[in-house]
């Protein structure tokens, strides 16, 4: 492998890793607060892609308006899902709420098949993002280049929000102890909705960045990236935002290099093996907090 090729793969890996990181943050934040694996998150990511097709192809809106519409629609979808499918189960056993999440994922996939048909649909081209640029010896598209930068910016902003604002403090309190924070006067439902707003906003951003260089969208497209991003979140320690980011980059990079080595069939196998290995040796992930078991 030449140095140029190596750099090329590195950039591609970091770029896809950045997208995984954006989605993984959604998983990790929801898990941190609700202790729920939001199985529907990958499908929200898929729905965001269809919203884009709707806005740009069916309504022929310019890209900057479309992006705003996609972000808004995805956030609304996420908050509605939380209100309808998760909120009634606040006091239910954890298994029930997880089953509800699986049900939502199933519903979204079937809904997408019904509304947009199971056939792949072309994703609109955003001229300014698909332009190719050359950096030294490597040539790439704008989107590949700005993805990791955008990811870092979002993670930085999110950390500022969580560590230095009132709602961020409320979020930290809720993730530490659900019931006590309720007793302290924190409006739990608002905090949870806000978590979903952030998660879905990032998923929508990730969706735009993910699909722009890819040709098509189909209803099951979200399930595998969804799983991978969850693994990224577990790898970094679920509940930790820098952890999710790191996990996303690690999975993106290793996937790209496995594909480059000619084992593209097994890139997903590697991700799942990574998951099982991490769970066995460090179940709380790299930056996760240790949980003690109480009777």
């Amino acid at each position: 492998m030449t140095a140029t090729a190596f750099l090329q793969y590195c950039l591609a890996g970091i770029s896809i890793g950045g997208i995984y990181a954006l989605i993984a943050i959604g998983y990790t934040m929801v898990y941190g607060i609700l202790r729920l694996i939001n199985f529907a998150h990958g499908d929200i990511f898929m729905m965001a892609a269809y919203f884009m097709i709707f806005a740009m192809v069916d309504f022929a809106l310019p890209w900057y308006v479309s992006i705003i519409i996609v972000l808004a629609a995805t956030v609304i979808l996420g908050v509605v899902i939380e209100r309808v499918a998760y909120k009634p189960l606040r006091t239910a056993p954890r298994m029930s709420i997880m089953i509800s999440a699986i049900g939502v994922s199933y519903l979204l996939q079937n809904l997408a098949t019904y509304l947009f048909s199971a056939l792949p649909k072309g994703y609109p081209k955003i001229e300014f993002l698909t332009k190719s640029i050359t950096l030294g010896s490597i040539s790439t598209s704008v989107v590949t280049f700005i993805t990791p930068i955008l990811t870092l910016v979002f993670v930085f902003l999110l950390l500022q929000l969580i560590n230095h604002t009132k709602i961020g403090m409320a979020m930290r309190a809720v993730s530490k102890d659900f019931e006590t924070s309720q007793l302290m006067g924190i409006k739990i439902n608002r905090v949870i909705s806000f978590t979903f707003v952030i998660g879905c906003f990032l998923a929508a951003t990730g969706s735009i960045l993910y699909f722009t260089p890819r040709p098509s969208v189909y209803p099951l497209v979200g399930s595998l990236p969804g799983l991978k991003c969850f693994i990224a979140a577990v790898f970094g320690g679920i509940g930790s935002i820098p952890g999710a980011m790191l996990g996303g980059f690690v999975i993106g990079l290793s996937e790209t290099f496995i594909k480059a080595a000619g084992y593209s069939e097994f890139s997903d196998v590697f991700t799942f093996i990574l998951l099982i290995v991490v769970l066995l040796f460090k179940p709380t992930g790299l930056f996760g907090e240790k949980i003690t078991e109480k009777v």
Partner: protein
Amino acid sequence: MTEQKKHKLSILLSIFGVVVLAAALFGVYATTSSSDMLRTVLQLGAIYALVAVSMNLLNGFTGLFSLGQAGFMALGAYVFAIFTIPTAQRPGVYYLYGVADWLANIELPIIPALILAGLICALMAAIIGAPVLRLKSDYFAIATLGFAEIVRIVVGSSPMNRITNGSLGLKLIPKFPSFFFPFIVVGICIFIVWLLINSSYGRAFKAIREDEIAAEAMGINLAKHKQMSFIISSFFGGIGGALMAMYMGAITSTTFNVTLTYNILLIVVIGGMGSLTGSILSSFIVIAAREWWLRFLDQPLWIAGVQIPLFKTGFRMVVFSIILMIVVLFFRKGIMGTKEFNWNFILKRLDQKEKAPVGGEGNE
């Protein structure tokens, strides 16, 4: 009526019930043609019943939330298919890559192949169970889901071409030898699970589900019982997968994706986590609804010359998933909760009749 008499009577009633069901099945066989929807639904329902029961054993009775069912089904289906496709037709099936040399002349009859499929799944469960079962609830779920995906990808990958035919999948898998075959196999398997649930092992499983720490304090060996539940569940999952392969006649690795696990999980939830009869009942209802009763939703509907816009391909699955969500949200216990079907409602009535003063008898 004494307890003993009640017990005897309920066994008699159960035998009677099985006979009635068998007669009904025979009636269906005698009165319908081989392509009838009712036959399809009953066969597929029976297969799903077995898989749902095996999942329920793990998720509902032992409280281990596993999402690996599709992986074990894939393993079972492939093991079964590899050993039962007639040797004469193998060159045709493996037309692109050729069949592996050691495999070319091995052909097993159906029953031993079914058992082999189950055993290999059980072995796999034993291997991955030891590490994976140490994980807590949702981590266990995601690890088993990961395992299922690994199985699916490996089975369909190119290094396995000469064994599993890679991404092309396998076809010409022997069909059911008779209409009754799946019902007999499923019946026997579920009966074994029922015996297990009502044994001391079954009670230990339920104790683990209710409270792991308390169960351990009562002297239940957690690791051993979890492992056992996992292995047995996988064994029957494998047999279910093999039956599925027989039913379909052709399989590819994409048949056994995550959606299949979700389908089975939702059947278990609708039937009631922790109820065998609930799982069986809901399998038939869900399959009949999905494959048969709700079919009309996919057809364009015309009322008085106006086409109702909602009805088109895919609407059936949307309605179906909304029904599922309603069950999950508002009827969390499902059809049966953790109760089992029993004959008490008849026995009670008999009891009352006996107790009611019977004119004349005591007065003379």
